[in-house]
């Protein structure tokens, strides 16, 4: 239907579909729109009692909406296996500590009595009252150790100690990571496994080579005992 000149370019035309523009252009019973509106709300109200898809409320403390894999807040430390101390991937390299923009990470390297590095943190604290959830620590970590968590119930009555997360609260298992963000965790696990396999294969190859060398030498020694006499045993 053509819209008469008067209504062309009228804001009401641009607002909705052409149907609405025609309704505006033609005379309609004043007050009809009020009843249409009332019908809409009545339908909303009545259907809310029997149509489950209308009621999207999640009754929070009892029910929880599933969090998206993209949900990220405060960091946690990942460990393999069952022991949060022995399995901790963190090597206390302090890259995250240095990269953290608000400087909320505090790491002390664990050393043995001789002062030799044990390649694990003695203290790893994150002050989540300072943390701004940027995720830079997780990005820069070369040891797949630090990840952003999905935990959002962090309120506490102790605003100092309660918001300073130590190793005991930061360390979470690789299984937890898998549950939280399966895609990322499985990719990391596959990569780590490949690296591990490669390392093991290299080790095995090295060992095999050493063994072969040794055998070859023994064989050579057996074949020509006279020639090798006086020389030391191979390591």
């Amino acid at each position, binding site marked *: 239907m053509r819209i008469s000149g008067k209504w062309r*370019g*009228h*804001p*009401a035309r641009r607002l909705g579909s052409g149907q609405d523009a025609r309704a*505006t252009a033609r*005379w309609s*019973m*004043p*007050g009809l729109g*009020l009843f249409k*509106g*009332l019908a*809409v*709300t*009545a339908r*909303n*109200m009545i259907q*809310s*009692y029997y149509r489950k898809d*209308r*009621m*999207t*409320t999640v*009754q929070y403390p009892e029910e929880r909406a599933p969090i998206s894999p993209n949900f990220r807040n405060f960091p946690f430390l990942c460990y393999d296996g069952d022991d949060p101390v022995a399995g901790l991937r963190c090597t206390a390299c302090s890259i995250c500590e240095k990269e953290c923009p608000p400087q909320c990470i505090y790491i002390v390297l664990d050393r043995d009595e001789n002062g030799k590095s044990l390649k694990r943190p003695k203290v790893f604290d994150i002050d989540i009252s300072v943390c701004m959830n940027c995720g830079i620590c997780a990005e820069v970590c070369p040891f797949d150790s630090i990840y952003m968590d999905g935990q959002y119930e962090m309120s506490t009555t102790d605003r100092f100690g309660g918001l300073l997360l130590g190793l005991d609260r930061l360390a979470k298992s690789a299984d937890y990571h898998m549950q939280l963000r399966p895609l990322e965790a499985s990719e990391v696990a596959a990569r780590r496994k490949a690296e591990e396999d490669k390392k093991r294969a290299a080790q095995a190859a090295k060992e095999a080579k050493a063994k072969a060398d040794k055998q070859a030498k023994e064989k050579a020694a057996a074949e020509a005992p006279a020639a090798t006499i006086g020389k030391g045993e191979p390591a």
Partner: protein
Amino acid sequence: MSLLDMAYGGPSLWAPEWLPRLPQRVVEMLLQHYDTPEWLVSLAGFAVAAATVVAVFLSAFALLSLIERKTLARIQNRLGPNRAGWFGILQPVADGIKMLTKEDIVPAKAEWFLHLAAPVLIVVPAMLALGVIPYGREWVPVRLELGLLFFFAVGTLTEMAVFMAGWASGSKFPMLGAMRAISQMVSYELPLILSALGVIMVTGSLSLPDIVAKQEGLHWNVLTPWGLSAALVFFIASIAEANRCPFDLPEGESEIVAGHMTEYSGFKYALFFMGEYLGLFAISGLFITLFLGGWQAPLPGLTVIPTWLWFFAKLVVVIFSHLWIRGTFPRVRIDQLMRFAWLCLIPMALLTIPAAGIWVLIGGGLLGWLVTVPLLLIPWVVLTTIHNRRLAPQTRTYTFAD
């Protein structure tokens, strides 16, 4: 006569029709039994009757505050309050405790006495107005010959309290809210009273029980052309008088925080709400009395149900329509509000007066319909159409944006 005899005395004492007046009559009988002077008996009777009305409507207020939230929630596909008690039934109690335990803040610039008096004053007229409404054939707290006049006279006191609150708070938002409230209430008081004039003309009385008695046997005023027109005007004006959406500009939380209630906290704030809801009950009660046949049953066969129950059934319907309207329409602008009152409602309210006069002259019937329907329908359509066109948005040309 012993007290026991009195208690089982007349059958009318325990009749459902008399149930709401049972406390009053028991107190009167007790006092008479102990030879109390007559003036004291009637005074105590009135006090108990007033207490009954106040108790009924305060509990209704508590219930409505919950039902309103639940209804609005359902309209918006939410659940509404459901934590305090079964289906949130204890929510009004929780609200009351919260309000009572809150700090009462009086701003340094406020005039403390007026600031204190305003929330009290806003509840009093609503309660006074509730006192003259006939809730049932036997339940009329105060039978006044000039009940309607009293209702309107007392009802206008609310505006004074609102302005008092706005002025005494000593800050700008309350002042703006109060000024809006005054302009709105004064504008809407006119169509409200004018639309009631037709009823007075037809009934020939200002007494509310008389008005109800005249509408017996489904001769409700709303079922006549002039009555329907007047009822429409009255209903719209009553929404504005009760300060409710879409005419809740004095509160206007998106613009002026909470209007005249901005500087109030704690129970004073709750009193404003109480006053508003009691005012809503009162004006809805008057609407029922004037147009919906008051406590009259719709069909003669249904008179077995006590009349006061009929009144409250109608009250539930009217209040629900208020909730429904609140859940549907957005708030109007102040110029729209004033224009609608002066250019549409007041002419229509004025027209219902000759229409009612013609109706009475002709004596109703088919001829009455033939004459009054065009007399009212044509101006309605013309006025609302003009109104619609004036409010259509103008094409806007942007100097810099495009």
